[in-house]
């Protein structure tokens, strides 16, 4: 997590990006698509995005208004009209002129309006989970289901975390039989690509057959 929001965003320097630092896109000919990488805090969303992204991970400061902070459960966060949260994202160009944008959206319920806003138009979501606290991913799965987004679950194997079989994990996560589950190391590129393939295969099964 390198994207802790600045406590005083209003005073953050607006440094100009240096030439060469910005990776531009071709102006035409590509199809851009959005995938949501979500899950509880610290589950490895940013790690997975960094592993896959062809650009250094970027973030935006997203402003949330009072209506969405009413049930804030962060201890010590003073009541205020707005709060900002950093949303990390990365970019992955896939052969065939497709460009995937991977948005790491916070999984806490209090961020649901922001989550919905970012998820609009997404192909699907990858819900990440940690074997040491699987239940933390439940609210996220609820949000994704409420939004009607196809999703796959990626269990990030942290070093030293207990290993479990897919069957055990599926049972504890209460997954529907058709929901894909992949175990991965979010630092590993092949593993991380594998999670996207599992998600894309699942998205395909939800689309009507061509006639």
């Amino acid at each position, binding site marked *: 997590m390198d994207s802790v929001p600045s406590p005083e*965003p*209003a005073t*953050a*320097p*607006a*440094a*100009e*990006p240096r*030439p060469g630092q*910005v990776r*531009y*896109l*071709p*102006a*035409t000919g*590509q*199809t*851009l*698509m*959005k995938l949501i990488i979500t899950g509880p805090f610290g589950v490895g969303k940013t790690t997975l995005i960094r592993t896959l992204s062809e650009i250094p991970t*970027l*973030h*935006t*400061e*997203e*402003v949330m208004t009072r209506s969405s902070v009413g049930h804030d459960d962060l201890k010590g966060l003073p009541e205020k009209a707005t709060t900002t949260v950093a949303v990390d*994202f990365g*970019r992955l160009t*896939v*052969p*065939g002129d*497709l460009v*995937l*944008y991977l*948005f790491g959206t916070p999984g806490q319920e209090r961020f649901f309006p922001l989550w919905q806003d*970012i998820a*609009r*138009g997404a*192909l699907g979501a990858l819900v990440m989970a940690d074997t040491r606290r699987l239940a933390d991913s439940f609210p996220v799965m609820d949000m994704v289901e409420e939004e009607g987004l196809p999703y796959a679950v990626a269990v990030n194997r942290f070093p030293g975390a207990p290993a479990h079989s897919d069957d055990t994990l599926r049972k504890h996560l209460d997954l529907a039989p058709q929901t894909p589950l992949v175990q991965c190391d979010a630092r590993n590129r092949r593993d991380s*690509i594998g999670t*996207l*393939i599992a998600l*894309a*295969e699942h*998205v*395909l099964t939800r*689309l*009507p*057959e*061509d006639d």
Partner: protein
Amino acid sequence: MTAGRPGTSGAAAAPKGGPPGGRGRRLIPAYLATGGRERPRGTAGFDRLTLLVATDQQPPELDFGPEHRRLWTLLRPGALTVVECAAHLGLPVSATVFLAADLVGGGHLLARSPVPKAEEIDRTLIERLLVGLRALP
């Protein structure tokens, strides 16, 4: 963000937050000037993945604020999405959309949405994606 400093660019005599439009000179950044508007004009079609490209027409200093010119300058070398512009400029996405809409309105930027609409997400597209993902190094 340096954007939150209305009135520091030669607009000393102007009343803070004066009505947008009307006169030629913009006194405060566009997205601050939209305060009274439910929905800023011209931003409806934008989202995070709208692709922005600069035209050769530099936004004139008299009509546009420094944030508009920063956005146009960022886009001079090539195309970027709204969300990448927001991240590089350190601006909220919503503010970046306001700036982009103003610049598109003035002919200084082109915007296009290379994002498939819901009805265009079909098996062919996802199959292409799968082939591409499997071919990644």
